[in-house]
């Protein structure tokens, strides 16, 4: 009797488990489906080709997602600020390049699909060695050591020929003729699907890692490293293991980078690449697992689109970054999470009006700012490159006074309006959160 009751109770539980899984994880599945389908939106049926730009951008997104998530294993989950994370991406890439060249030469019968494992092992090996030193310290000393390591490896990459190929880097050819599925990998779209597979795998692995004893103790030593010692853990070992694993995932990203571009240079280990990881992770949000994913997608999109349109991509990225640090230190996902209690209480509708009122002035400031930046840019760099500033076929002369006046007016007027609107929004926000709080305690 009781046994039967247990069994009947268990069965719907299993079915409910799948449904619950779907309900909880549907955004990930949706993202995966989207990733599989999206290249076909840009498929040119007349030529039978995918847009090279789109596929390359999508591949870059996949690589960046792994890279940013692996960075957040340090920053968000273990509270370790690293300035040299690219080292493991790059070294993973170099190792992969050598491995692919070896398979091409016939020395190593490794199918191309599995070469990211070589990247992972490469990243892991270097993270074990370098992490042995770096994780001896925490906080600022750790950050400084990683900065040093980053510069060190970059200099080495420029200096040594055998492994790094010096300034020219190591080039490779991904068409090794060895594949599990008989795919040639001549077309970028084929590599893209390989990236999707490895990205999905890595995301799942990293998500599961947060739920292991190591993942939890990484959180614990981030929150209070001293307390972690007094429950039996050596925080240094926690840092070390977390660092090593994070390096392995960065290595996977590096391997995919190598397969995509078929060349690895010192850029992949250098400071700007590390800064990119920081940027993506921070803008996406360090507090939520999916934060870096959002950041990676957003930054690559901006990087690709904006750099197509404008010379000043770095300025926009920098300003965006500064705004986030100043006003939303928990990143984009953090901003979204702030709305969660309001949404639960069913009061999100009350904020729509205030948000809409912000839209106008914010847009004015944005346009004014972009105009000002572009004017500057065209005045100097654009002029040097012989470009002219055209906006829907109207050519704007950056040497004239009028466009500058317009930009200034937009900035100042919009700014003043925005300040007023912000005050109104702040009041509305406070009122709503206060309401949610009181109803919350009543319930």
């Amino acid at each position, binding site marked *: 009797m009781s046994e039967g009751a247990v069994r009947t109770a268990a069965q719907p539980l299993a079915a409910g488990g799948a449904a619950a899984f779907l309900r909880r994880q549907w955004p990930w599945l949706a993202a995966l489906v989207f990733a599989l389908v999206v290249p076909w939106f840009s498929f040119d049926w007349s030529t039978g080709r995918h847009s090279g730009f789109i596929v390359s951008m999508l591949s870059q997104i996949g690589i960046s997602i792994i890279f940013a998530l692996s960075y957040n294993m340090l920053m968000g989950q273990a509270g370790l600020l690293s300035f040299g994370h690219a080292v493991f991406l790059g070294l993973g890439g170099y190792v992969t390049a050598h491995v692919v060249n070896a398979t091409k030469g016939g020395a190593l019968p490794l199918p191309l699909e599995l070469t990211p494992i070589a990247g992972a092992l490469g990243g892991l090996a270097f993270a074990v060695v370098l992490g042995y030193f770096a994780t001896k310290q925490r906080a600022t000393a750790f950050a400084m050591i990683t900065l040093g390591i980053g510069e060190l490896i970059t200099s080495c990459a420029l200096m040594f020929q055998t492994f790094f190929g010096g300034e020219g880097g190591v080039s490779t050819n991904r068409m090794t003729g060895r594949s599990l599925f008989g795919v040639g990998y001549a077309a970028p779209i084929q590599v893209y699907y390989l990236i999707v597979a490895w990205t999905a795998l890595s995301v799942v692995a990293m998500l599961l890692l947060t739920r292991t004893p*190591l993942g939890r103790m990484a*959180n614990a030593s981030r929150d209070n490293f001293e307390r972690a*010692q007094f429950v039996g853990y*050596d925080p240094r070992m926690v840092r070390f293991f977390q660092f090593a*694993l994070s390096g392995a995932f960065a290595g996977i990203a590096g391997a995919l980078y190598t397969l995509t571009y078929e060349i690895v240079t010192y850029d992949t280990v250098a400071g700007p690449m590390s800064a990119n990881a920081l940027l993506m992770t921070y803008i996406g949000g360090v507090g939520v697992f999916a934060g870096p994913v959002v950041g990676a997608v957003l930054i690559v999109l901006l990087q690709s689109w904006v750099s197509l349109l404008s010379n000043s991509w770095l300025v926009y990225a920098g300003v965006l970054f500064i705004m986030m640090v100043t006003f939303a230190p928990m990143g984009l996902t953090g901003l979204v999470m702030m709305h969660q209690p309001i949404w639960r209480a069913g009061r999100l509708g009350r904020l729509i009006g205030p948000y809409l009122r912000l839209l106008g002035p914010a847009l004015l400031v944005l346009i004014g700012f972009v105009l000002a930046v572009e004017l500057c840019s065209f005045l100097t760099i654009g002029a040097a490159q012989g470009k002219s500033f055209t906006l829907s076929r109207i050519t704007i002369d950056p040497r004239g006074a009028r466009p500058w006046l317009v930009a200034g007016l937009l900035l100042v007027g919009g700014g003043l309006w925005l300040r007023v609107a912000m005050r109104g929004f702040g009041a509305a926000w406070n009122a709503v959160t206060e309401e949610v709080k009181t109803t919350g305690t009543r319930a």
Partner: protein
Amino acid sequence: MSVPALRLTDVKKSFGPTAVIMGVSLDVAPGSRHAIIGPNGAGKTTLFNLISGRFPASGGRIELHGRSIDGLPPHEINRRGLSRSFQVTSIFPRMTVFENIRCGLLWSRGYKYSFWHLVGGQRVLNAAAAQLLADVNLEARRDVPAGLLTYAEQRALEIGITIAGGADTVLLDEPTAGMSRSEADHAVALIRRITAGKTLVMVEHDMSVVFDLADVVTVLVYGQVIASGPPAEIRANRAVQDAYLGAPAEVS
């Protein structure tokens, strides 16, 4: 006589030119409840820090169950069965209450630095954590980030984390500090219940708690032990009264 659970022999500590602990010797019998009292700044918390390995001692010997623990790092001492709480609440503020307790359990349950177990699936572990949660009366707050608990709840959680690892020697640093009478009474009942059968050493300011709970009281003044013995004896000790308890007697 059995080996003491904890034995200090002429332990010393100085910070730069200032001597804080000036030769403390102390035996704590297994299973006893030992209170250390003394005015603020007498060095009680420093003594705890030396025993638990937070700071290295400048001199002397510390033994746990007859084995020296001098110079060992805190996590090593913890693994040998000594656990401590902090005077200033020390928890994992961004993790939930349940996670806090579970982190206290992980090492003693043999998980070490595992990255191949999913904590959610470990039934025995989670059952033990749930039991501890019930023991410290925080079931209702299971999924709240620990940083959002009230002060008294955080103190209870602190004790929960401290005993979670199943250490047989427990050091509690002012477990009732800052609590009202009724909260302190709760805490005393809790401590009595969950440290049954363990060796307890605690620093405490609240005399009613001390005399309620302790078998042995040691008085530490200015880095030295001036008396040690059963509560009644300490109460009657003239030197102690002068240095410490004597004060109110003078005015009343």
